[in-house]
């Protein structure tokens, strides 16, 4: 059996959590993986909670939802508080936005803060692309998909007028992730 990773992005509606998960899924397809992705969000377009789940595997996927997350990416405190209870017992990794989330102390869970919203506001002058900064950082840290596959996925799935800023955010995030990542 090959590897199976369960990734959960969470935040509040409007943060682009669903787009981040979808783009990750597309990238994993490009890498030749099996992928299942599902989303959950409130009825309203803004506010409320949003969640995007991606299961990436070397083999066909039996159950397509996340049962417990190997990787949790949190963009809001309320979402973090809910989903931190559902991370894998062994080797779970939590990546959180350090402006939005105050992590709780947990044994055996590696938690990494990424200044995604901060960077989006100050460096990229667009709060909306915090999701792409977070995605770029998460991929750099986890190497769950190929960097080039990720960039192509953004180019293919984001409307042309937002493309450049999203790709830039992804690259900036990727760099942040590399800086945070402890070399093995």
């Amino acid at each position, binding site marked *: 059996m090959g590897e199976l990773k369960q990734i959960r992005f969470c935040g509040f509606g409007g943060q682009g959590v669903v787009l981040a998960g979808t783009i990750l899924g597309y990238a994993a397809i490009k890498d030749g993986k099996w992928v299942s992705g599902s989303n959950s969000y409130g009825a309203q377009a803004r506010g409320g909670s949003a969640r995007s789940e991606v299961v990436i595997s070397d083999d066909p996927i039996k159950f*397509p939802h996340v049962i417990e997350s190997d990787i949790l990416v949190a963009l809001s405190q309320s979402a973090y508080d809910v989903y931190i209870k559902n991370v894998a017992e062994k080797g779970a990794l939590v990546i959180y936005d350090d402006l939005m989330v105050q992590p709780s102390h947990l044994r055996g869970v590696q938690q990494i803060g990424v200044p995604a919203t901060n960077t989006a506001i100050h460096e990229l002058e667009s709060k909306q692309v915090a999701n792409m900064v977070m995605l770029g950082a998460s991929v750099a840290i986890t190497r769950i998909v190929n960097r080039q596959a990720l960039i192509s996925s953004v180019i293919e799935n984001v409307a042309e007028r937002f493309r450049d800023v999203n790709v830039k955010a992804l690259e900036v995030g990727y760099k942040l992730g590399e800086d945070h990542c402890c070399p093995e």
Partner: protein
Amino acid sequence: MTRRKIDSTLSPGFYYFSGNEAVAEGAIAAGCRYYAGYPITPSSETMERISIRFKDVDGVFIQMEDEIASICSVIGAVWAGAKAMTVTSGPGFSLMQEGIGYAALTETPLVIVDIQRAGPGTGQATRVASGDLMQAKWGSHGDYQTIALSPWSVQEMYDQTIDAFNLAEKYRVPVFLMGEEAIGHLRERMEVKPTVDIFDRAKKPGAPPFGTNQDDGIPPMPAFGEGERLLVTGSTHNEFGIRKTDDPEVHANLVTRINNKILKHRESIIKTEPYYLDDAEIIVVAYGFTARSSLFAVDRLRKEGKKVGLLRLKTIWPFADGIIHQIGRVAKKLFVPEMNRGQVRGEIMKYVACEVIPYNQTNGDIIHPHEIMKQVRSLL
């Protein structure tokens, strides 16, 4: 009936489609070139994709004023020669029922996709359920048969949409793809193969379009504009379409034939998938998304050494009575988890004598594998 392979209209390869997008692509691959529909959550993504993709294949797309108009215009287009489809969800499926009965009696091949949501009524429009299965069988008045399929993955939303068209054409019958919100909105890796198997509509100029002496009971299917001067009516009719609304024999023969042409072929229509059945003491019978939860659960339980199996129903109607009867004789208990109040369990109980334990969840959520494991463990 001829079977041929056609080139796919989408480049072969792997895609990351949602289930609803996969339906649109499956329909196009199957040769569907007429689509009429009305927006309804959680199915609208299919219609949106069709409206764009039909431009590539010279298809006719129309957004109608309601679901009644959608099914009726689909029937009109089929008689004009199209392979046609509409996609909807519970409330729209309810509105279509009169048209479905008309299609059954006029033996109009068409495909209806129902992306099931939590009902009854408007219910929970964005949440999942599997509560329309009995409606697929009994929704319109009178006695008729349809074929209903139950996909469990995005790949099957594509593959079974193609199957649905082929079955509709082969048996001249409405075919339902009974999707569920959780599959319609799921994205997964989906493979588009280079070629697709297609059934072409049987033609036999001059032959009666509503009757046959052949054992299969399936008449050839002409179209308007072919000089056949067809008479198509939803009233009782003879083999040439002439109304016979007072003739008991014509009515009895017609109703019998449109039922038997499906029931006689049930062995080739019905598809099931067995998992670990050989020595299973408890067999889970499941379909749709719940079958995936069930397979995950059964796999885990097998690893624990539990004698548990799964029978997955890919076809809901006609019902898999034969294999259900068989497993009912060997298993101690059957366990039937459903996102409804026991629609398929009731059907199973017609064919088995053993205990059939229901697990019914109607909260708008999928049934989680852990719940199935817990329930099955309590039965061991």
